[in-house]
C-alpha cells in the first residue's frame, strides 16, 4: 500500500515539474514572470517528490488548494485590471500595469485560469477518481478536523495571520514592509512554539482582526481610500468598484468565519480554565490525601495477595503434593510391604495436619475468624488472651463497624500488642476502645460520618518507641489512613508507651457480643 502511494506521489511530482517548466516557458515568452505562482507550484512539486509518504498523501489536497487559490487570484486580478483601466496608476498584483494597458493581461489571465482549473481537476481526480489512492477520505471528517484543531497546529496560524495583518495595515501591496512582516512572523513563530496555547488564542484574535480590517477597507467607497487599498483582495492596491467590494467581502467573510470557528477551540476553553474560581484548598487537600491513601491501600492489598499466594504455594500446596506422593507410594507398597505402607500413610496424615495448621495460620493473618464471628470487641479480647502479657481490656462498642474498618483496627491492635511484647519489656498492657457518636473530628469533614472510634493501647514497659523507626507502626498508620484514621504515639524514655488510634466510622447493627 505504502509503496503504491509513493509511486503515485512520484508520478504526480513529475507532472508538476513538467507543469512548472511549461509555465516558466510561457511566462518568459510573454515577458512577464508570474513568480508567485511559479514558486507556489514548485514548492508543491518538491514536497511531493521529497516529503515522507504521509505528507505525499496530502498532495491532492495541496493541488486543489493551489488550484482554488489560483482561480481566486486570477479572478481578483482580472477585476483589478478592469479597475486599473478605469483609474491608471501604480499597482501590485502579478499582472503589471503595462500588461493591463497593452491588453496582454487578458491572455495571461486566461492561461492562469486554465492552469488553476487543471490543478483543481487533478486534485479532485486523485481524491474522488476511481482509484482514490492518494487520500483516503476520512471516515469521520469532523473527527479529522478536531484532530488538526490542536493548540500547536492552530498556533502556527499566528505568524501567517500576524504578518499578513502587518502588510495590510502598513501600506498594502504598494510598499509592503517585508522586513517588518518577517520579523513579526519570526517572533510569532517563537511564541507559537513555546506557548502553543497562547499562540492559538492570539492566532484566533489575529484572524478575526484580519477579517474585520480587510472587510472594512474592501467595502469602503473608493473616494475615502483613493490610490491605497489596504483591504481584500490582498493583491489589489488601487481603486475599488462594486465587484471589488463583493470579492473582498466574500474573502473577508470566509476568513471571519474561520476566525469565529477558532474561538470555541482556543480562547473559550482557556478563558474558562483561567476564570474558574480557585479550588477550595480544603477540598484540594482532601483530594490529595485520598489519592495518596488510595494508592497506599491498593499497594497494601496487592502485597497482601502476593504474600497469601507465596504462603499457599510454599505451605499448604507443597504439603498436599507431598501428601499425594506419599499416598501413591503407600498404594504401591500395600501388597508387598504393608508395614512400610502404614508408615507412609501415617506420615501422610501428619502432612495433612501440618497443611491444615498452615492454612489456619494463613486465614488468621488474612481475616481472623473470631473477627468475622464476633466483631472487633471480642476479637480484641481473644487477641488479649493469646498475648503473652497480662492484657486488660476495657471495650465498649454499641455495634459493629464495617468489616474493612474492623479488620484495620484489629491488625493495628495486634501490631501494637506485638510491639509491646517484643520491645517494651513491660508486664501489663491495657486496651481501651470507645466509640463517640457525633465527635467533632467525624463531623468536620467534607463527608461527615456518624462517629469516632478511639483505641488506646498502653503498656508499662520501658518506652522509647519511635514510629519513624519501625515499619510496624508506620504500616498501622498507612492502613488506618485509608479510613481517614490517625495514629499517635506517646512513649517517653522510661515509659509508659501509649498508642492512640482514631478512626471516623459508622457502627451498624445492635450489639452481638456475648460478653
Amino acid at each position: 500500500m505504502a509503496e503504491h502511494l509513493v509511486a503515485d506521489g512520484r508520478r504526480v511530482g513529475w507532472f508538476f515539474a513538467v507543469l512548472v517548466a511549461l509555465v516558466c516557458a510561457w511566462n518568459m515568452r510573454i515577458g512577464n514572470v508570474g513568480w508567485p505562482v511559479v514558486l507556489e507550484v514548485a514548492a508543491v512539486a518538491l514536497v511531493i517528490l521529497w516529503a515522507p509518504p504521509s505528507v505525499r498523501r496530502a498532495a491532492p489536497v495541496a493541488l486543489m488548494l493551489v488550484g482554488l487559490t489560483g482561480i481566486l487570484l486570477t479572478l481578483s486580478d482580472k477585476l483589478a485590471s478592469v479597475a486599473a483601466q478605469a483609474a491608471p496608476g501604480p499597482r501590485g498584483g502579478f499582472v503589471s500595469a503595462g500588461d493591463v494597458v497593452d491588453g496582454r493581461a487578458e491572455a495571461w489571465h486566461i492561461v492562469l485560469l486554465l492552469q488553476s482549473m487543471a490543478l483543481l481537476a487533478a486534485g479532485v481526480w486523485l481524491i474522488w477518481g476511481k482509484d482514490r489512492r492518494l487520500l483516503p477520505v476520512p471516515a469521520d471528517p469532523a473527527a479529522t478536523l478536531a484532530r488538526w484543531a490542536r493548540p500547536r497546529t492552530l498556533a502556527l496560524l499566528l505568524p501567517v495571520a500576524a504578518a499578513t495583518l502587518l502588510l495590510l495595515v502598513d501600506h498594502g501591496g504598494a510598499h509592503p514592509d517585508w522586513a517588518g512582516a518577517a520579523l513579526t512572523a519570526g517572533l510569532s513563530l517563537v511564541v507559537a512554539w513555546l506557548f502553543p496555547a497562547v499562540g492559538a488564542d492570539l492566532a484566533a484574535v489575529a484572524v478575526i482582526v484580519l477579517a474585520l480590517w480587510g472587510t472594512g477597507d474592501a467595502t469602503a467607497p473608493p473616494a475615502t481610500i483613493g490610490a491605497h487599498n489596504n483591504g481584500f483582495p490582498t493583491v489589489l492596491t488601487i481603486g475599488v468598484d462594486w465587484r471589488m467590494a463583493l470579492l473582498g467581502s466574500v474573502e473577508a467573510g470566509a476568513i471571519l468565519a474561520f476566525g469565529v470557528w477558532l474561538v470555541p477551540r482556543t480562547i473559550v476553553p482557556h478563558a474558562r480554565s483561567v476564570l474558574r474560581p480557585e479550588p477550595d484548598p480544603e477540598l484540594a487537600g482532601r483530594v490529595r490525601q485520598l489519592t495518596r491513601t488510595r494508592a497506599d491501600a491498593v499497594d497494601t492489598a496487592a502485597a497482601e495477595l502476593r504474600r497469601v499466594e507465596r504462603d499457599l504455594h510454599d505451605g499448604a500446596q507443597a504439603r498436599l503434593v507431598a501428601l499425594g506422593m506419599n499416598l501413591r507410594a503407600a498404594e504401591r507398597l500395600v501388597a508387598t510391604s504393608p508395614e512400610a505402607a502404614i508408615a507412609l500413610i501415617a506420615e501422610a496424615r501428619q502432612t495433612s495436619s501440618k497443611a491444615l495448621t498452615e492454612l489456619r495460620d494463613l486465614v488468621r493473618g488474612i481475616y481472623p475468624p473470631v473477627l468475622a464471628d464476633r466483631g472487633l470487641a471480642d476479637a480484641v479480647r481473644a487477641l488479649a488472651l493469646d498475648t503473652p502479657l497480662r492484657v486488660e481490656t476495657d471495650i465498649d462498642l454499641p455495634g459493629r463497624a464495617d468489616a474493612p474498618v474492623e479488620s484495620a483496627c484489629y491488625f493495628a491492635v495486634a501490631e501494637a500488642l506485638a510491639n509491646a511484647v517484643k520491645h517494651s519489656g513491660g508486664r501489663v498492657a491495657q486496651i481501651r476502645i470507645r466509640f463517640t457518636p457525633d465527635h467533632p473530628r467525624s463531623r468536620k469533614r467534607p463527608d461527615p460520618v456518624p462517629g469516632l472510634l478511639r483505641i488506646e493501647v498502653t503498656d508499662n514497659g520501658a518506652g522509647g518507641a519511635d514510629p519513624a523507626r519501625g515499619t510496624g507502626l508506620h504500616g498501622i498508620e498507612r492502613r488506618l489512613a485509608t479510613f481517614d484514621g490517625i495514629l499517635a504515639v506517646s512513649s517517653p524514655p522510661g515509659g509508659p508507651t501509649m498508642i492512640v488510634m482514631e478512626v471516623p466510622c459508622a457502627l451498624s447493627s445492635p450489639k452481638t457480643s456475648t460478653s
Partner: protein
Amino acid sequence: MRAVIAEDLYLLREGLSRLLEAHDFEIAAAVDTAPGLLAALLEHTPDVAVVDVRLPPTFTDDGLRAALDARRQLPGLPVLVLSQYVEQLYARELLADQAGAVGYLLKDRVFNDDQFVDAIRAVAGGGTVMDSEVVSKLLGRRSRDEPITRLTAREREVLELMAEGRSNSAIAQRLYISEKAVGKHSTNIFAKLDLAPSNDDNRRVLAVLAFLNS
C-alpha cells in the same frame, strides 16, 4: 451411647456418623443447622453432642451459641465443639458454667480416631477436653504470670495433658512415668494453684479453669 452430630458439610457429617457408629455410638440425630441442633439436643438429650462451631444460618459461631444455649437449659449436657481454629475466648465461654463435660478440639483431631473417640467419651463422662493448641498457648502466655511460675516443668507437662482430657494412666504412659507419680504431680499442681481438696475430676476441671480465668 447416644450422640447428636451437628456439621454442615455433608461429607464430614457422614464421616463423623460412620466413625462414631464404628465405635458403638448410636446417632440420635445428625443435623446441619444451629436451630436444628438446639431442637435435636432438647428433644433427644443425648449422652454427648459433637458440634461444629461454624454452622448456618450466619456461618459464624452459630454452633457454639446453640450448644451454650442448650447447656443453659440442660445444665451439664456433654458437648464437644469442633472447629477449624481454636480461640481461648470460646474455650472460656464453654468452661464458664464450671459444669464440666465440655470439649473444644480442632477438626483435624478427627484424623486420630482413637484419641478422638477417647475425647468424646471423656466429655460424655463429665471431663474437660481442651485442644493441645489452646493448652500450649495458655501455658505459653502465662509464663510471666504468677501461679504458673510456681509449677515445675514436669508439672506443666502433666497439666497440659490433663487439660487435653487425658486420664492419669494415659498421662503416665505418655510421659513414661508411673501412675503414682502422675497422682503426686497433680496433687502438687492443685496445691500450687490453691485448689481446695475435693473430688479429683472436679479439681481437674478447675485446674484448667483457673488458668483460663486468671
